[in-house]
């Protein structure tokens, strides 16, 4: 009898626990009265080895001054968008969110991001150097926090010296050097030095990495873009898009044979960084001189070209922003916090532990001197993506078609037209539902 009672008691307590788990969260607090202690929540991905620790240390003064506690949730990159979607679906939205361009269209059209246009001053545009890059879909929806680290073309100076070449400036230079650099250096009859270290496998990373690394730059340099200016259709299958992809395809003989199997990062680290290719692409960082010396000890003599020029300059540089969510009860305070975080006092200290481009006119550059020209003389050679509707779907499909071309399954024009047709159908449906 005792055993029976005990097991019944256990079952009842399990039921009670389950029922408690189904309960809803406590009701969100209303707007706090002046003088009362407040809390702001912020969601962001890991931006360095200890983002929460580093941020907390630098936010102590602001928290005290504003009688406000900043609660941070650091979400891994791999599940970042999923956490946002499921969080919002569950009625859980932060006051401030770190977002990248591909995320914005859905959240803006759902009315979840606050337009900051009327909340910032004219002086802010002078002080916050990249504020214009938070402008999208007719409003100012974010203040850039991570920018100035575009994907650039690294080159191996020793290989270029050995073939009597200088750093490339144009597509013609680049193709010529790639051709000359691709050779069998040890005489065993196999190519062991390549022109261009490219990796097109998207395993463990998004397909978009293929576009970030290799395609946007060529598309923009050819004078094209993803969308038309009114964002109603895609433009990547136009003359410039075809020229860009044809040029990329023409470089295939100078890429490693397993370019389709390698990921972009692996191509850089195992081919270019091992001295087996003249060129490689990866995201630049203000500390690359330091990090390359540590991570790639075999890569001694390297430099970079921010962007080649064909018709124009252009390469992809993200402008990830902090945004005020429209569900925030304290939007002014949230914007004040964002301005503090991206401002000189915070960033001068933060960039000492996680080097990055200065975000404000008052902040000094503290990264490797070699990388500084990206944010000074080359500042106009890189830019973020257009924020357009159905972004991820369109771009993933575009990347898949680029893979098909590189695999030889489709020719350039047919692949781009097929991808554009899919994209335009999505856009037509989007505008039919939203206008």
């Amino acid at each position, binding site marked *: 009898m005792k055993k*029976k009672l005990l*097991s*019944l008691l256990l*079952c*009842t307590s*399990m*039921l009670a626990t*389950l029922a408690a788990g*189904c309960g809803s969260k406590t009701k969100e607090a209303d707007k706090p009265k002046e003088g009362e202690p407040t809390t702001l929540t912020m969601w962001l991905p890991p931006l360095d080895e200890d983002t929460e620790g580093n941020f907390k240390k630098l936010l102590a003064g602001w928290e005290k001054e504003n009688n406000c506690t900043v609660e941070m949730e650091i979400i891994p990159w791999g599940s970042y*968008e*999923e956490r946002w*979607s*499921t969080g*919002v*679906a569950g009625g859980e939205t932060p006051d401030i969110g770190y977002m990248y361009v591909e995320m914005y269209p*859905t*959240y803006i059209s*759902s009315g*979840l991001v606050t337009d900051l246009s009327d909340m910032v001053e004219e002086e802010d545009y002078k002080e916050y150097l990249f504020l214009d890059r938070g402008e999208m879909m007719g409003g100012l929806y974010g203040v850039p926090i991570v920018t100035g680290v575009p994907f650039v073309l690294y080159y191996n100076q020793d290989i270029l010296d050995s073939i009597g070449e200088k750093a490339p400036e144009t597509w013609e230079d680049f193709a010529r050097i790639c051709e000359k650099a691709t050779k069998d250096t040890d005489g065993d009859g196999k190519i062991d030095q390549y022109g261009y270290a490219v990796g*097109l*496998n*998207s*395993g*463990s*990373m*998004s*397909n978009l990495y293929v576009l970030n690394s290799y395609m946007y730059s060529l598309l923009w340099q050819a004078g094209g873009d993803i969308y038309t200016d009114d964002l109603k259709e895609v433009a990547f299958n136009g003359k410039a898009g075809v020229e860009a992809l044809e040029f990329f395809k023409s470089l295939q003989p100078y890429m490693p*044979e*397993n*370019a*389709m*199997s*390698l990921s972009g990062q*692996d191509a850089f680290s*195992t081919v270019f960084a091992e001295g087996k290719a003249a060129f490689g692409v990866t995201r630049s960082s203000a500390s690359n001189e330091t990090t390359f010396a540590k991570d790639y000890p075999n890569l001694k003599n390297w430099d970079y070209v921010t962007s080649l020029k064909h018709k124009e300059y252009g390469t992809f540089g993200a402008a990830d922003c902090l945004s005020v969510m429209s569900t925030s009860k304290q939007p002014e305070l949230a914007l004040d916090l964002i301005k503090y975080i991206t401002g000189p006092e915070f960033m001068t200290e933060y960039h000492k532990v996680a080097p990055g481009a200065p975000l404000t006119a008052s902040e000094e550059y503290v990264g490797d001197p070699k990388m500084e020209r990206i944010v000074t003389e080359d500042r106009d050679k890189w830019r973020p993506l257009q924020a357009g509707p*159905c972004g*991820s*779907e369109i771009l*993933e499909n575009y990347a*898949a*078609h680029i*893979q*098909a071309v*590189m*695999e030889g*399954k489709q020719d350039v024009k047919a692949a781009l037209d097929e991808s554009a047709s899919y994209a335009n159908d999505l856009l037509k449906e989007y505008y039919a*539902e939203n206008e």
Partner: protein
Amino acid sequence: MKKKKGLSVLAPYLYIAPIAMILLTFVAGSLILAIYFSFTKYNIITPAQFNGLFNYQRLFRDSKLHLCIINTLKIAAIIVPFEIVSSTLFAILISSRKDTVLGKIAKAALFVPVLSSSAVIGTVWNTILNGGHPAVKAIFGVFGIDPTLLLGSSKTAFIAVAFIIVWKGMGYYMVITLASLTSISDTFYEAAKVDGATKWDCLTKITLPLLKPTIIMNIFLSTISAMQVFDMVYTMTGGGPSMSTTTLSMYAYQLTFKGNKAGYAMAVSNVLMLIVLIIVLFQQRFIKHENSEI
């Protein structure tokens, strides 16, 4: 006395209540929600709007979906036979040496991949195949294969992924078969020996016929699992090259979290559920039939 009677009546319900609640919430509940949302326009972020049969009509004109169904079937067509044949063979081999050190080591070694995380296995195999290590190249070279090219071609990527899934899952079915083998009485083999049966006769006329219900169950379990392949593909190829390894589960995931089309993704998931349901019903009827024959 009355009180005791009341408790006795209630007790069975209370015993099953926790698991029933979990099943109702997370299995029946999510199933009902998936059916409900498949009739809506839903992006997870904003409230769902009823849109009738729109998502189901879309299933018929979605060429990507058709490609994903073909990819899933192609991968399953490799996984199921290889998983079943290899697990059965290993189970029989290990069973005949179950008391030796080698047998015990082999059993543990074949089961370790089952316990490992798919994400880790995918990443490790990616490195093995793409690493260009001379030893790996030499092993694959025996079969005339360059391992560094396997994941980069639409023709070979799904085969490579399928075989790695076979390698990972085989141990699970092997353990089920091993358990079934222990239930076969030694008297059958002793009697056969007396009648002069060879080892081959014992295998084909005693072991395999008596393993039939287990093999059938393994086939169906393996088919259901193969239809739901996701994590290994996600880590090894990301669904590429050019969507050649994008499975139904992966497509539903992409629609939900990349395309913000959770409503349509639920319709896709329901198609997958329907396929699995048909397999399960078929399995039940088949097993019943086989059991009645035995």
